[in-house]
């Protein structure tokens, strides 16, 4: 056994090709951006070595702080919605939905496969107010809630919640399906044992299901986090960062700085910040995983 699994040649064959491609295409550019971050301007355009000046600029940049706040809010609420909502749906499939579980799951998963561009266009039309009420506003106005009719995407206060709702819509199916899978793996007799011991719905969840589901919930959080921390395409497609800066994320700001303002150097600093934020975030999430440590 040991000999087979310790086969050096096989390990090399298995790992090295992927390692090379990954290193050159994913890892090297990251290192490269550290180098870029010491320059002002863009390569070919006002490219000048400025040392650490770009880093000093970071926290004095109001736009950056705004984008950071937007991004953090977005991560928090979207994760809560995707994972929390996904969990609720999974529990519903498991315990309440009797017939047509597969059909329901199939439908619920469906939005995951749609191109972000398409989803963005779609929701623009759903939240529409002018020239015609979109789906949401015409619903509100028809059920007598005329005073709730508003330009959902046109004001800073509602644009971000609208974006978050859209991304929950897209992502919740994915999370509910994988969490449902984990729920199926929990043997019926364990649940039944809990019921016999007099656990109500909440206690059953808290004492029996949650601990067993934890690894899966953590994975789910990792997926959700890695998707939301990069917040880019969906915001671009739905609001293009507006109104004002209300939905401009760090990635979008970085993109503008690098490619519109032609400051790739400063953009790289923001990229590095995002990268570090990702690492910190996944570190925190994995802290909950201590007991499951497998090495």
């Amino acid at each position, binding site marked *: 056994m040991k000999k087979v699994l310790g086969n050096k040649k096989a390990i090399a064959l298995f790992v090295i090709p992927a390692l090379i491609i990954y290193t050159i295409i994913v890892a090297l550019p990251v290192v490269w951006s550290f180098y870029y971050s010491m320059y002002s301007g*863009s*390569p*070919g*355009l*006002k490219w000048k070595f400025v040392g650490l000046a770009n880093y000093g*600029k970071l926290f004095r*940049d*109001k*736009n950056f702080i705004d984008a950071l706040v937007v991004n953090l809010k977005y991560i928090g609420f979207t994760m809560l919605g995707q994972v929390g909502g996904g969990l609720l749906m999974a529990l519903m499939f498991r315990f309440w939905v009797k017939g047509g579980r597969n059909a329901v799951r199939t439908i619920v998963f469906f939005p995951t496969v749609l191109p972000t561009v398409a989803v963005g266009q779609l929701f*623009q039309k759903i*939240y*529409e*107010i*002018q*020239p015609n009420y979109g789906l949401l506003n015409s619903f509100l106005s028809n059920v007598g809630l005329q005073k709730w*009719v*508003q*330009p*959902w*995407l*046109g*004001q*800073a*206060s509602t644009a971000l919640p609208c974006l978050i709702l859209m991304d929950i819509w897209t992502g919740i199916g994915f999370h509910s399906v994988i969490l449902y899978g984990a729920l199926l793996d929990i043997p019926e007799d364990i649940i039944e044992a809990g019921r016999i011991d007099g656990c109500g719905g909440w206690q059953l969840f808290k004492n029996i299901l949650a601990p067993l589901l934890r690894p899966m919930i953590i994975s789910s959080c990792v997926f959700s986090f890695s998707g939301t921390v990069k917040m880019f395409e969906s915001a671009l497609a739905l609001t293009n*960062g*507006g*109104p*004002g*800066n*209300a939905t*401009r994320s760090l990635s979008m700001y970085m*993109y*503008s700085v*690098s*490619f*519109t*303002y*032609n400051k*790739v150097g400063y953009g790289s600093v923001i990229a590095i910040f995002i990268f570090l934020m990702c690492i910190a975030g996944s570190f925190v999430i994995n802290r909950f995983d201590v007991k499951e440590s497998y090495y």
Partner: protein
Amino acid sequence: MKKKVLAAFMSTVMLAGVLAGCGSSSSSSSSGSTGSAETTAAAETSAAAETAAAETTEAATTEAAADTGSGDFSGEDPQLTKDFHILSIWAEDNDNGVLINQICKDYQKVNPNFTYEYELVSSDDLRQKISTLAASNDLPDMFVYESGKPIVDLIDAGQITDIGALLKETGSSDYVTPAATSLLETLSGTDTIYDLPLGLNVEGFWYNKALFEQAGITKTPDTWDEFEEDLKTLKDAGIQPLSCGAADKWGATRLINAYTVRTMGADAMQKAADGDTNYTDDGYVAAAQKIQDWANAGYFGEGVNTVDMNTAGSMLMTGKAAIFYNGSWFTSNLNDTTANQAGPDGIGFFNVPVVDPSISPADSYSMNCGNILCLSQDKTDEATKWFVKYFVEHIGDVAMEMQGSVKGYTYTTEASDMSGYTQLVLDEIDKAKSAFTWYEATMNSEVSDAAQQNVQTLLSGEMSAQDYMQSIQDAKDMSDM
């Protein structure tokens, strides 16, 4: 600094004289016979002479160079082999894409050794694409870009060709109208052009005649006070006075610009960009306040920030709003009979109303050259020059024949089916004696971003006019850092 002063000078003084030249050229050709090529050219030359006289030394030296060079390009096309890469934002069957492709195909008949690759990116991604390419010194032979500040970076980096000099060398300078030339020079703050125009547009207010009639308005407003009265009349008559595509942001900043220029003069934005004034000075704030007041009064209807320019335009044409600010390119929508329910004569045009004629007169129009074409400095060779020569000499006619549009080049033919709207625009261009540019023309991209993004919160009332101008000033201070 010196360049900027020159630019400001040119925008206010020279443009006036030069635009007159433009006016005469288009009127002479549109007024009648097809054989007016000579007269047109003559008018152009005299206008060009004025230009040259204004900047004596520069022009003299380059002209001397042009004299020696023009000999090489006067004869037959030498049919040099060239694989020409064009980066564009219009599909082959759309807008300027049609024209560029047509010219290329025509040129292939002159030079069969010329091949071209037509690449498309979306206009949103153009900047990103160009900066990626510029970073590795690999700009395409010819590419569409934005005039004004964006190309200044490329000019400073020496990445794009001095087209003014190139045209002098090939002896085809006169084919680009002086109006377009001086506008482009103003926009890039240089005394030669680094780009080719793809339009010569006026901007102003389009209005729905039926709705005006319905509200009892008999004539278009000449002064700003009349304008505001009309807006109120329309609103009181239960008509949405204005439609504005604030989702596309520039639709809203253009309105601020209109009032800023009319109250402070054509060089107001330039002064602020140069630091001679602050964006937070009273005049600028008042203009922003004006637009916010309109929004508060409900003139734009609900949810103005979610309406894009296309929708705003259809609202005008379908009678859901009475007035819409846009440029002369809007005629392509107006000419579309399925989209334009107002009919071939249902929409009219008026220039931005005047506040004080001594500050900004009624014959001063907001003008621009649309998106522009640049050439990669590294890839410009003899074959490129021959192609560009052919391009500028023919695109004016091709554009007029195929689309009835003016692109900033001289033309000798007339469109076969010139619509009333197209004619309307040509007439307005003729009336223009001087020009002012758009709100963000003098801003670099960071400042321009601030102006555009925050205009939405200005309209929604979530940001005061004072704070709005402050955010623009902050962005400027930040970018200078």
